């Protein structure tokens, strides 16, 4: 009796310490973001030099209103949404089929290709800009969303293949074999059996693609020629690049507004996230 009591107290104490540690950690991690939040709420004067506090003296949302009214915020937002969604569909669509092939078939060059893909992934993407520009110019794909989707999908393809192939490996083949006997083709197998089982991995990979596209600005501002076709990250990048218009409170407000949709998506899919990536790594 006494012993179980003592153990209970011990566990409680341990949990309290853990909670305290984690709260501190979360707080530390959030400090820069809270700082940006407070800056963005402090009006155009900016509270950069205010004392050691994370709370602005005077709360105002004028910076947020400014961005919505003075910048084509909603156009940028919808561009970001379109580009991310389209990239997600293309990258995941192509990668799912490819990773299925790499997971389920044994063919010459399979291991070689997988390794090669990993190495190719090491080439700094920024160096590719000029070549892709030349290619797109010949193909007349500059200033088009399709071109950008191809760039983004190509950039995330390798990651997607690796991540999903790992997960497919963990799904027992026996499940498919049964259906195979019933005469289902590869695509039916993939669509009806593998994909539902691998849903977490697919969703998680899709979110990684989303975050990449959402935060990318260099290709967006280079390949799109009209400010109205920029993405949020591209518009935000342009917002702070100019000495005339550089305003920290405004910039912070814009950063918060860019990040919130991602956080929201993240929060929504969190329960899939965990199991998806876990298995994605299994025997990867």
């Amino acid at each position, binding site marked *: 009796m006494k012993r179980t009591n003592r153990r209970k107290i011990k566990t409680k104490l341990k949990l309290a310490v*853990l909670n305290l540690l*984690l709260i501190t*950690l979360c707080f530390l991690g959030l400090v820069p973001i809270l700082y940006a939040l407070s800056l963005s709420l402090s009006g155009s004067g900016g509270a950069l030099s205010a004392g050691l506090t994370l709370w602005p003296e005077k709360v105002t949302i004028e910076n947020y209103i400014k961005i919505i009214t003075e910048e084509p915020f909603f156009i940028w937002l919808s561009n970001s949404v379109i580009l991310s969604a389209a990239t997600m569909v293309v990258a995941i669509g*192509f990668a799912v089929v490819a990773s299925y092939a790499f997971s389920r*078939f044994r063919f010459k060059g399979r291991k070689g290709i997988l390794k090669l893909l990993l190495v190719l992934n*090491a080439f700094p993407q*920024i*160096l590719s800009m000029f070549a892709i520009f030349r290619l797109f110019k010949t193909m007349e794909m500059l200033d088009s969303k399709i071109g950008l989707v191809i760039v983004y999908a190509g950039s995330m393809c390798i990651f997607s293949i690796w991540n999903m192939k790992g997960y497919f490996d963990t799904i027992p083949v026996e499940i498919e074999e049964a259906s195979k006997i019933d005469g289902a083709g590869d695509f039916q197998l993939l669509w009806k059996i593998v994909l539902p089982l691998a849903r977490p991995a697919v969703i998680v990979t899709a979110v990684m693609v989303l975050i990449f596209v959402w935060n990318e*600005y260099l290709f967006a501002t280079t390949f799109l020629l009209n400010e109205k076709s920029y993405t949020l990250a591209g518009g935000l990048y342009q917002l702070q690049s100019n000495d005339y218009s550089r305003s920290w409170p405004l910039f912070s407000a814009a950063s918060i507004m860019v990040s919130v949709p991602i956080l929201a998506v993240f929060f929504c899919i969190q329960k899939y996230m965990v199991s998806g990536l876990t*298995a994605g790594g299994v025997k990867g």
Partner: protein
Amino acid sequence: MRRSNKMLPWLYSLPALMLVGMIIVFPILYTGYISLTNMNLFHWFDFEIIGLSNYARALLKLDAGFLSALLTTILWTVVNIVLQVLLAYFIALALNAQGLKLSRLYKTLLMFPWAMPAYVSILLWRVGMYNTEFGLLNKLLAAMGLEKVNFLSENVPAFISCLALNLWMALPFMIMMIDGALQSIDKSYYESAQLDGAGFLAKNIYITVPALRGIIAPAVIMTTFTTFKQFDIVYLLTMQKGALSGATLQTIITYAHQNAFVSNNYGLSSAVSIIIFMLIICFSMGTNKGLKEED
């Protein structure tokens, strides 16, 4: 049912491989081609093939400065990866402690830094954290009655500052990976270990770590690559044009940028890029051993 079929798998992976070919392989080949030409400011459109002389010049750049940049990069990568994995491991362990009710909330909060575009985070840290006048760190020091510190003006503090920022930006991903991996470990192992009287340390060494190793290897390797070629943090924090902080920290990518890219000599900078790519491949051969692929 690991099938063997000659054509079918190629057909299935064709769209993806074409995409990779177009966006990744083609640029590498094109960079290789440009590296053989004299394309520069003075031969912008009328460049011609001049052979390997760019490589000869690029190799000349592999001097003491490059060597120290390479060492810095390796140190940067190793310290980052070790710290990331260790910290993420313990944080993930804490998040998975039995009876922790708020773990989902903590997890979401810890993911926050990930949602911000990288350059936003970096600029935010430069002004919001490290700035001598308005940075929170210096305000904290001032509040404690200490002197202001310029975190970015000398190499060692600048290295640590960059490190802290990179950890902040990269830990969420690692925590998530390890957290996921932890949940896949069969709980019965721990129960039997408990019966055998194994302590916290023993459980970690004999069960958790071995089980995790294979699972998180791909993530660690991908992160290693990213860290190795990391450019933004060092560049934006210490050497953005018009905002040099005083530190002279160089990684191989910033070194290449400074030595080949500002000069608008595309032939030369392409040769430097290809050499660096080769280096990264060599580097990856080393880490590749950690990645075991079943047959």
